[in-house]
């Protein structure tokens, strides 16, 4: 198919030589013919003419072949472009509206494509990323779901499998404190197996990375991020082998990661990597599931085969250690990219689909504009045909015009995409992995250019067909009513299609708005206003557990004394914070074997926490200062916990034995439930309240929780006072992750909000474009039916009847569009099911509301043309033709 095109391109490059060669060839032919005629007895002069006669028109043939051999010469294309430019400049209104429409469509789709490309399509930034697999055991309780690994289990998987080149555990969520001569800073740290860099195929920029023996407890080595190395150590290459103080202990710097290196990819806060030796306490606890794992498959091994072998190992471990492993006898091996992008993939594709609809609507609008214009230009085309332009030349002219329009549109679109990304990326925050890397890069530009070309061809097809088909002579004679009618029908069909697509987008936007409002207005179970939260981390080396508790007490006391602070407390983890800790427990009345015990979320809080958070105490008592380590062990549970585990009973006074202890020497103990509080949401997106039980912080000292301050003034106003308090206690303890309650809840629903904002802006674009399209078609209809309207008025039709006439035409189009749109909206609603919370996508109220919105805006769009129609002066209208 393409061969002739390539041949023409080649010929174009050698145009001059080929022309000369062909001249020679023709000359030779003529000479041979002439000689032949001379042999047959003609005189040379006779033979010359006979040869020419036999050959046919020599010059014509040369011209003809020259044209066919190569591409249209550049100067022709340039001339086309010039002409197109003149045409576009002449019709400024048309050009502006078409280019703007295109910019809107192309810009929105380029922005969404850039996000999708960055988040989903781009491979992981490591060597041979296809062989990187996420590995996790599957917990069979409830819906089987991937869960975390314990160190002993991980070590067994690592030692026994034959399918992974490297298998690496990683655990984050730790903040390490760097204390050197500079003021202390807090950095995110990831605790990883020694072969992380080997597994990823990444060479550290400096140094060697870790060695196997550095997993041994007691070794302290660290690899620094490039940014940390530059900012904290001035990019000093002498850093290698140096000792730096981390959490009060000396760590040897084993390397510096290359610039831009991130692991885990989705975590932007990690600045430091250290080996599993940091987790000394957990290395021997088979029940402590805290690890994620990632591995590199050996060449040629499939994920399926790897999973089969890991399943075998898991099965053996479950038999060997039933108490800890009975419920995790299966495993999951899935491409790391899929794990990373799994939850974002479908919504982003759906958004790209939605923005594709916007683009189609934009194309329909431009096609509509072009059709209206080509009607006006029929005379121009006829004239050009009359003076010798061929139809292909006219079509080429149209295509060049469209392409220019497309290019202008896509330039505007790229600009718009850039602005859009600036506006929407902060909305997503960190709720979508990698999204912060999104920018207008080469791939996005190529996408924009391709879309521009594709749409140019798409929207110039209709006008081009008309040029080819139109009886051009007829157009000169005016009154080509048939053509006009067909053209009008086509334009109407375009508007119907726009309404159909627009309705789908409207319904989609409504669903996401409703879902978002549902999430945002849902009572989180605590008051988010007048609340400030922040974290601190005490270096383990300087603060043992008793010192941590003492520090916490003194800090809370001083924080409470800040003017404007009503209450201060700590909690770990906070609701909506994205962190959850789950611990199994045994109910005194109904003891069960270890693997069959229920488990639920826990939190560790200080006395006064429920008051500070405004989580209502429903029954029993709150924790007090008397609930110390030596006092009887107590717990508070939430309502959901009481209902789920003690239905119909009074939960106060019941005793359970949680599987959480203060350390290796501590025994598990029965603890008495002394109070019931309201349900505070741990996870923002889950539908039902989750059971949770609370420990007083002195009876389970796992470190200092997040500080919460209930304020009488706007919460940010007490921030600096809080910093002063902290510095007064210990200059080396930094404060981080300072957030108001409202920011906390906003972050929790960032992803639904991001999706909603995009979808709503698409729907608004769609509605605007559709209204513009409808307006255009109706205005044209009024102009076309001027005579008819005049006639009706002359025959006695009133203003109202004329208005009704135009509105009827509008509503016919809208009704057809809505009818088709209903089917589309049903399909769209089903697609969105995974993106909405707490609402029924199939609820007819959504479709009904969208239809109403469409009808109302359509009436608005029809109003101006209808008024024009009613204002027709019958005398002038009838006289005009």
């Amino acid at each position, binding site marked *: 198919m393409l061969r002739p095109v390539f041949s023409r391109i080649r010929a174009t490059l050698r145009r001059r030589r080929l022309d000369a060669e*062909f001249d020679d060839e023709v000359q030779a032919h003529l000479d041979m013919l002439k000689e032949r005629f001379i042999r047959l007895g003609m005189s040379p002069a006779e033979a010359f003419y006979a040869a020419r006669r036999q050959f046919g028109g020599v010059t014509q043939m040369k011209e003809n072949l020259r044209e066919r051999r190569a591409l249209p010469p550049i100067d022709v294309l340039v001339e086309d472009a010039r002409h197109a430019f003149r045409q576009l400049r002449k019709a400024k209104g048309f050009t502006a509206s078409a280019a703007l429409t295109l910019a809107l469509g192309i810009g929105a789709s380029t922005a969404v494509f850039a996000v999708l490309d960055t988040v989903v399509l781009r491979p992981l930034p490591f060597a041979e990323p296809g062989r990187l697999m996420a590995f996790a055991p599957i917990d069979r309780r409830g819906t089987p779901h991937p869960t975390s690994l314990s160190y002993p289990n991980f070590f067994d998987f690592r030692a026994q499998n034959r399918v992974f080149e490297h298998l690496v555990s990683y655990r984050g969520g730790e903040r390490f404190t760097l204390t050197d001569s500079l003021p202390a800073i807090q950095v995110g740290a990831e605790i990883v197996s020694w072969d992380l860099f080997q597994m990823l195929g990444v060479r550290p920029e400096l140094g060697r990375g870790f060695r196997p023996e550095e997993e041994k407890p007691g070794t302290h080595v660290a690899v620094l991020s490039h940014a940390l190395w530059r900012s904290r150590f001035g990019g000093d290459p002498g850093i290698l082998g140096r000792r730096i103080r981390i959490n009060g202990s000396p760590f040897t710097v084993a390397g510096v990661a290359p610039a831009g290196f991130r692991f885990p990819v989705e975590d932007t806060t990690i600045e430091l990597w250290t080996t599993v030796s940091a987790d000394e306490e957990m290395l021997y606890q088979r029940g402590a599931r805290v690890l994620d794992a990632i591995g590199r498959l050996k060449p040629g091994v499939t994920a399926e085969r790897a999973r089969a072998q890991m399943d075998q190992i898991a099965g053996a471990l479950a038999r060997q250690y039933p108490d800890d492993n009975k419920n995790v006898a299966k495993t999951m091996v899935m491409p790391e990219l899929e794990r990373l992008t799994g939850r974002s993939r479908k919504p982003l594709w759906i958004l790209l689909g939605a923005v594709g609809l916007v683009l189609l609507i934009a194309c329909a609008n431009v096609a509509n504009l072009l059709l209206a214009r080509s009607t006006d230009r029929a005379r121009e085309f006829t004239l050009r045909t009359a003076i010798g332009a061929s139809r292909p030349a006219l079509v080429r002219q149209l295509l060049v015009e469209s392409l220019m329009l497309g290019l202008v549109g896509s330039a505007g679109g790229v600009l718009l995409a850039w602005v859009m990304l600036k506006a929407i990326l902060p909305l997503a925050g960190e709720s979508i992995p990698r999204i912060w890397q999104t920018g207008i890069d080469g791939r996005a530009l190529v996408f924009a250019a391709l879309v521009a070309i594709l749409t140019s061809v798409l929207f110039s097809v209709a006008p081009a067909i008309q040029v080819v088909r139109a009886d051009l002579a007829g157009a000169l004679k005016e009154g080509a009513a048939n053509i006009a009618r067909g053209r009008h029908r086509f334009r109407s069909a375009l508007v119907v299609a726009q309404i159909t697509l627009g309705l789908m987008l409207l319904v989609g936007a409504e669903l996401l708005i409703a879902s978002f409002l549902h999430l945002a207005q849902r009572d989180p179970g605590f008051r988010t206003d007048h609340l400030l939260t922040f974290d601190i981390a005490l270096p383990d080396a300087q603060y043992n557990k008793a010192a941590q508790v003492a520090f916490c007490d003194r800090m809370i006391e001083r924080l409470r004394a800040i003017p404007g602070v009503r209450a201060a407390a700590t909690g770990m983890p906070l609701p909506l914070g994205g962190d959850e800790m789950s611990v199994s427990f045994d109910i005194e009345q109904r003891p069960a074997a270890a693997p069959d015990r229920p488990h639920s979320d826990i939190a560790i809080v200080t006395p006064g926490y429920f008051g500070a958070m405004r989580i209502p105490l429903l029954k029993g008592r709150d924790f007090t200062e008397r609930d110390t380590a030596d006092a009887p062990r107590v717990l508070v549970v939430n309502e959901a916990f009481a209902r789920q585990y003690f239905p119909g009973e009074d939960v106060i006074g019941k005793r359970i034995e949680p599987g959480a202890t203060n350390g290796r020497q501590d025994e598990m103990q029965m603890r008495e439930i002394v109070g019931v509080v309201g349900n505070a949401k741990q996870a923002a997106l889950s539908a039902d309240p989750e059971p949770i039980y609370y420990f007083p912080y002195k009876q389970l000292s796992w470190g200092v929780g997040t500080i919460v301050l209930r304020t009488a003034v706007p919460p940010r106003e007490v921030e600096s006072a809080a910093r002063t308090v902290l510095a007064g206690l210990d200059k080396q303890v930094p404060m981080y992750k300072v957030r108001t309650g409202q920011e906390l809840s906003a972050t929790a629903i960032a992803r639904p909000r991001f999706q909603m904002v995009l979808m709503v802006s698409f729907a608004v674009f769609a509605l605007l474009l559709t209204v513009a399209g409808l307006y255009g078609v109706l205005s044209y209809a009024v102009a076309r039916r001027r005579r008819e309207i005049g006639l009706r008025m002359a025959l006695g039709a009133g203003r109202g009847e004329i208005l009704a006439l135009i509105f009827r035409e509008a509503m016919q189009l809208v009704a057809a569009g809505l009818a088709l749109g209903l089917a589309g909206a049903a399909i769209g609603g089903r697609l969105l099911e995974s993106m909405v919370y707490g609402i029924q996508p199939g609820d007819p109220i959504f479709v009904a509301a969208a239809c109403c919105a469409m009808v109302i805006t359509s009436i608005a769009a029809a109003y101006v043309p209808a008024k024009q129609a009613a204002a027709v002066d019958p005398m002038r209208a009838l006289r005009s033709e």
Partner: protein
Amino acid sequence: MPKDRSEVLQGTLDLMVLKTLDALGPLHGYGVARRLEQLSEELLRLNEGTVYASLLRLAQKGWIRSEWGASENKRKARFYSITRAGRKQLAREAESWERISGVIGRVLRLESQG
């Protein structure tokens, strides 16, 4: 309609040129023209220039190729020869041509009977 008729003729001419090159081996444009004249026994009178249009079409599709050589009377001339793709195309075309002409022949006979 005149456009359609010329298209049929173009296709026919291309087929004949292709067959000629297949049967006689490399030829220059003049040679092709002589051969066609001979074969058609003056039934097909064509401007010999159109042979070159046909040769260009065939070359652009990759069915023939050309190279410069010396003609019988020591003139520089471009010789055209059929390519492998050209032979395949020729086989296809010849088959469909025979099928169509067979059908047309039958239809025409049928009419003359009726």
